[in-house]
């Protein structure tokens, strides 16, 4: 999209705005039309840059997210999410969101409510669990002997759990709470 300067390459007829150029075109007309549409797309791109640009602070958060890059941690994949995988209960409001993550033999079940989160690591084991909202250190929980954990801070926005178990570190897939 470099031809923003006008009629270069269009043999002098700039082809804008003919009412008859909607559908059956051939040869130069079709070429002119494509060229016009490219210009229009470019104009939209500029308009979006002015009226709906990506906020600079937001992009900075993505730059800082590099800190989340950790090749040693195993990723527990999201295998169930009630938002997409469960049949909604009619008329039910404020139903908890149920999530299940899996990696290897480890399962993490999590339930999110407006009051907080609770969950369980299976098979039952003690683990330290960090509630992540971004690259910064999150709040830390410890499971009981049954692998259960609770937090009274309801997650909002980007969310993941980092589990430190005897067998190493597991991080759940990120999702939007």
């Amino acid at each position, binding site marked *: 999209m470099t031809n923003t300067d006008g009629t270069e390459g269009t043999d002098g007829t700039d082809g804008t705005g003919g009412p008859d150029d909607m559908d059956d075109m051939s040869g130069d007309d079709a070429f002119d039309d494509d060229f016009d549409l490219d210009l*229009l797309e470019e104009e939209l*791109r500029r308009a979006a840059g002015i*009226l709906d640009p990506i906020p600079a602070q937001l992009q900075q958060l993505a730059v800082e997210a590099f800190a*989340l890059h950790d*090749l040693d941690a195993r990723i527990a994949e999201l295998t169930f999410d009630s938002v997409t995988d469960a049949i909604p209960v009619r008329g039910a409001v404020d139903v908890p969101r149920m999530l299940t993550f899996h990696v290897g033999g480890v399962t993490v079940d999590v339930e999110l409510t407006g009051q907080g989160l609770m969950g369980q690591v299976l098979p039952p084991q003690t683990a330290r669990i960090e509630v992540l909202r*971004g690259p910064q250190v999150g709040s830390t929980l410890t499971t009981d002997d049954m692998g259960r954990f609770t937090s009274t801070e309801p997650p909002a926005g980007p969310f993941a759990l980092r589990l430190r178990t005897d067998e190493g570190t597991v991080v759940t897939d990120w999702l939007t709470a």
Partner: protein
Amino acid sequence: MNAIHWRSRSRATPVTAYDDMPYTRGGAVDRADVGALVQSAVDGDAAAWKALVEGLSPLVWSVVRAYRLSDADAHEVYQTVWFRFAQHLGRIREPEKAGSWLASTARHESLKVLRGLKRTTPTDDPQLLDRVSEDRTPEQSLLDSEEAAAQSERVRHLWQEFAELGERCRQLLRVLMATQPPSYQEVSASLGIAVGSIGPLRQRCLRRLRARLEARGAV
């Protein structure tokens, strides 16, 4: 500008390298670099990561906007997408398709938020017009100058007509107008539509937009 930085990294690459490209779009030119940048980032190169963010974050932003997420939701989904990308870096099977990976993740996460418990008011594109006065970029300041008044008017009209297009066209154009023009593969991943349908749909939508502009005498 970020765009210049991104483009300066690009090498001349034969168009034939891109099986999904009917013709060269800006984004495609940089694609061979994306795989190399991902690899460098995997190896711990923070500058490569930054270049990836600068090159591909306009696409992620366009996708969340295409789905009309509210400001708050758009910010959250955008972050989730990048956090997940950072997490999966080094495990992504086709690093050169990182743009499609991001676009597809942004699409799924946007749809999920829309389906979820949160019911927030979708963004109304015309409302964005009111923002011009709030947080000034150099481009916006330029629009304030008197000689640019006509251009400013044109931008407003264009945005209004764009916002009133049918949902399909509005979505497609919002993705296409990302600051770094996306490849058709990325557009396909953004919207879940076949690569082959994008070209014809794009033409139709842009013609429709042009007809609307002509009708209001704004061409």
